[in-house]
């Protein structure tokens, strides 16, 4: 049966409520602005354009996801924004000031948690404030506050190795947020988690994001995750890494897992698939056809002794 395209709104169609929301977001101040950003790696094999001519901006309290095939430069982009890597052309502005080098105004959450295994959960979170020169008591108060927000007060004296992956990532989020960054940069933070934990963490992240004044740039390669979380999705294409499209997600907020099958969600997903896996889709169809044409299986059994 053919999918009924006509009954679905295209991913560009927005309900009045969604449209009003985007209008409101666009009125807010710009936190991060990236203009003609480029990155060229010089390696022994020659020069690689990891990123070329990237343009986008993120408004205050917006949640933007970056998606794209492996090697399209997602990590490179976020590392440049974090100041861990230099860019080779263009500018990246945080609150209008050019980014050069790392700083506490940007919080970073890595895929591998990167907690300090020798410190308890609370001391991990206290690390930033203490290094900033806040006293022990203030640092502890701040840590307790953020641990409560991520729901880990009970585990504040546990060590990271005693926690599950999801809990560790929550500690990592608390540790990034305790420094009160302007923007939270997350590089595939839930990539190492199982599906169930991942779903929980997504709801959890949105809950946190709703409650506090923070802007989030979130890298993922999971289409559902991107649509579920994002206000807008920045789609990159590889070789060289360029902006394919910046999609405004038409799924209304507040989001819930029930929306995974809503028409807006499916339309957006179809568009993302089209952008990211055009070749893969064609291959899949071919493979299916071949299977239907000639069954390869040989039966080593009597036709009458079916197991089913």
């Amino acid at each position, binding site marked *: 049966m053919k999918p009924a395209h006509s009954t679905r709104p295209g991913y560009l169609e927005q309900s009045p409520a969604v449209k009003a929301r985007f209008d409101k977001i666009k009125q807010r101040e710009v936190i991060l602005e990236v203009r003609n950003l480029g990155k060229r790696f010089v390696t022994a094999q020659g020069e690689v354009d990891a990123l070329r001519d990237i343009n986008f901006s993120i408004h205050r309290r917006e949640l933007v996801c970056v998606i794209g095939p492996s090697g399209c430069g997602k990590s490179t982009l976020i590392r440049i924004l*974090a100041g861990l890597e230099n860019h080779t052309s263009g500018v990246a502005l945080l609150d209008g000031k050019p980014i050069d080098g*790392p700083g*506490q105004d940007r919080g970073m959450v890595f895929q591998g948690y990167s907690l300090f*295994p020798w410190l308890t959960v609370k001391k991990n979170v206290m690390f930033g404030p203490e290094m900033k020169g806040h006293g022990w008591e203030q640092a502890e108060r701040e840590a307790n506050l953020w641990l409560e927000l991520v729901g880990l007060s009970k585990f504040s004296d546990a*060590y990271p190795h005693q926690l599950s992956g999801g809990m560790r990532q929550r500690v990592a989020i608390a540790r990034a947020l305790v420094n009160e960054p302007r923007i939270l940069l997350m590089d595939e933070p839930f990539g190492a988690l199982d599906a169930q934990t991942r779903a929980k963490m997504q709801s959890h992240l949105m809950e946190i994001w709703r409650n506090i004044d923070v802007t989030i740039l979130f890298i993922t390669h999971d289409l559902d995750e991107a649509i579920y979380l994002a206000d807008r999705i920045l789609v990159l294409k590889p070789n060289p890494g360029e902006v394919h499209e910046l999609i405004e997600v038409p799924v209304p907020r507040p989001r819930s897992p029930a929306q995974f099958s809503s028409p807006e969600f499916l339309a957006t997903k179809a568009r993302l698939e089209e952008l990211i896996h055009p070749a893969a889709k064609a291959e899949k169809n071919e493979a299916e056809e071949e299977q239907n044409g000639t069954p390869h299986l040989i039966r080593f059994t009597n036709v009458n002794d079916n197991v089913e």
Partner: protein
Amino acid sequence: MNTTTQLIPSVWQRLMALVQTDASGESVLRKFLGGIAPPLMGIIIFLGIWHVSASGIHTSLGTLPGPVAVMKQADNLYQEYRNEQVREASFHERQKNRKAEFMASNPGEEFSEIKYTGQPTYLDQIFTSLYTVFVGFMLGTVIAVPLGILCGLNKTIQAALNPLIQIFRPVSPLAWLPIVTLVVSAVYISDDPMFAKSFLISAITVTLCSMWPTLVNTALGVASIDKDLLNVSKVLRLSTRTKVMKIVIPSSLKLIFTGMRLSLGVAWMVLIAAEMLAQNPGLGKFVWDEFQNGSSQSLERIMVAVFTIGFVGFMLDRTMHSLQQMASFGQRTE
């Protein structure tokens, strides 16, 4: 039945618990025996072979002693230590009395005390050895850990030091000793030396031979820190000093301790040879002296020393293993 019997299991209940099966379906008692029986068996077989074959080996110092003779000699050495203690106590008693008499007859004058100089007993020698190895090992650690951190942090320093490490690492203590002896004799000149020369020579030789595993493992540990942990320090804009103290050292602690454990093993092994040649009054000198003495008991005494050296080495290794365990934060170590 009163409450006490319910809370505290009777002897019978405890015994029954031993034959009860645990989760793996084996009885606790059998599991315990299964753990202890093979090593016990190994020791018994070893003692048997030793006992039988020793009586057939005739050396210039008499027949090779068997386990029983060695055991007796160990007891003998312990008795010598006890006797020496008694002698020292009585010496101090006598000196105290003399002092009292002296003070009574010449009030206000200084009494010149005589220091007790008894023979060093076997236990004294063990402690001298432990002290020497500890000083040598600590000196090595104090040099090797900072060097290792520098190597791990900086590729250039690593490249500069690597050939030196590779060349010096395999050098035997016997080769170092003459050099160390000459250098110490030339440099360490003092009217009232804080340390005996023989002690310094032994300790420094231990340092030179044992510091390499710590150096290599520290460098490895520092070089293999999770890059994201270092990124955390960059995001917080930590100074190099803070970075090293708060992130680099804690995260490479496990490998530093692994290196130190290997180093201590080497140090203890090297020490005996160093003491033999430098005549530092420890176990090595004890063995050497007994060998030179050539009395009928010498072989027995040397064998006691062999077992002592082995046992102390084993205990040192266990201690370092516990430290290593503490530094590994939940990961298992071998």
